[in-house]
């Protein structure tokens, strides 16, 4: 049976990348779920570009405070050592390389690591928010997305066709089907979902994949 990771599980896998002591920003949508899956024993400092560093998990309904939200308008919980700052300070922090990891959603990623995650054909008024700044500034850019569109078209491509967020910025792609690292040599397929084979993943990918020597099932 071919399995696909659901959104929660993709977020869980992405959170596995958070090293101890790292500063992490979570983009709009699915990436925000990562706040609930920090691996045990690791301390992660979540930064959100609206001006907060060091918050905890997403707030439950009873804890909700709309003066304590992340950049996706989701109320979050407080942790000791947390602090607040304004948008200019926040983006100094981001552009200046003081955010170690950002997890972003995407429409498309190219084999060179180009990212397209904000503009869609027919929706010219949608904006990039802080995505461009984060993609350029963060030391490591992780993309979480579904491997293909609803229509089954690949989202991992030789060249992006949607407007770019930034060039050559993505380091790791985590989808419902695979974990793919972007290297100088190209796209390296590192992990695949239960029941899938490398050729099957290649068939739904719009750029050439190199199978890792130690290709394995997605680790959670």
């Amino acid at each position, binding site marked *: 049976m071919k399995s696909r990771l659901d959104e929660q599980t993709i977020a869980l896998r992405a959170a596995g990348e958070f090293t101890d002591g790292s500063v992490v920003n979570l983009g709009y949508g699915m990436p925000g779920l990562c706040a609930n899956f920090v691996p045990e024993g690791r301390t992660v400092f979540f930064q959100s570009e609206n001006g907060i560093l060091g918050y905890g998990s997403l707030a439950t309904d009873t804890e909700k405070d709309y*003066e304590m939200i992340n950049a996706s308008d989701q109320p979050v919980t407080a942790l000791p050592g947390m602090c607040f700052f*304004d948008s200019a300070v926040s983006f100094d922090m981001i552009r200046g390389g003081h955010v170690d990891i950002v997890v972003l959603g995407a429409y498309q990623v190219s084999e060179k690591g180009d990212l397209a995650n904000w503009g869609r054909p027919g929706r010219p*008024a949608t904006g990039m928010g802080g995505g461009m700044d984060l993609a350029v500034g963060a030391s490591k850019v992780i993309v979480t997305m579904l491997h293909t569109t609803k229509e089954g078209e690949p989202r991992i491509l030789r060249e992006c066709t949607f407007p*770019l967020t930034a060039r050559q910025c993505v380091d790791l792609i985590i989808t419902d089907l695979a974990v793919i690292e972007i290297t100088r040599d190209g796209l390296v397929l590192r992990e695949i979902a239960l029941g899938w084979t490398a050729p099957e993943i290649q068939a739904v990918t719009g750029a050439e994949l190199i199978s890792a020597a130690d290709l394995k099932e997605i680790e959670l």
Partner: protein
Amino acid sequence: MPVNKVVNNCDEAVADIPDGATIMIGGFGSFGGLPINLIVALANQGARNLTLIANMGGVGFELSHRIKPGGYQDLGILFENGQVAKFIGSVPALGGMPPTSPLERLHNEGKIEIEMVPQGTLAERIRCGAGGLGGFYTPVGAGTVIEKGKEKKVIDGKEYILELPLYADFALIKAHHADTLGNLVYKGTARCFNPVMAGAARITIVEVDKLVEPGQLDPEVVVTPHVYVDRIVEVPG
């Protein structure tokens, strides 16, 4: 600069905003830090042909009611009212969210101009205006639609684009507490664009939850020094 900056209510605070003004509006999105009472007063006041500079374009009345029972008010009201000619910001409309917001609808109809600015570049352009600088080079937006028409420069082997300052006639912002001189403190993530915009406008108008006397705010914790604030309205929460 008048020493008495306290005005009686939001209507009075925005009364002299003329048609054609450029207005910065603080906050981040629809929640936390949005000077919503000043926005509603501006909607009632009715100035038209405005240029708005804000992070997000808001969702407006109809859409907010589809998203959340009871809905909520944000700067979408100014677009619904047809008061805005141009929007400068990082998220005019949220991509994931049908139906379209008032701003997106007007834009689709060709009735409003949008200048899209990456969020960090927006913050820095505003700060640049407030701080008397002529512009700055940022790597953000290089190789994207954002670089169109902008000067590019390679500095130390890296590509940058030149971004210019933003100024406004008025800034409408929200703070938690103000003293009567205009020193401001904020609350939690409601800080965001508010301190950045204070000072980039000729007239900065702040809506606060509570007004206190000078000396009641610890000098170590003041976020916005009073020189940036021209009018203060207390709107108890």
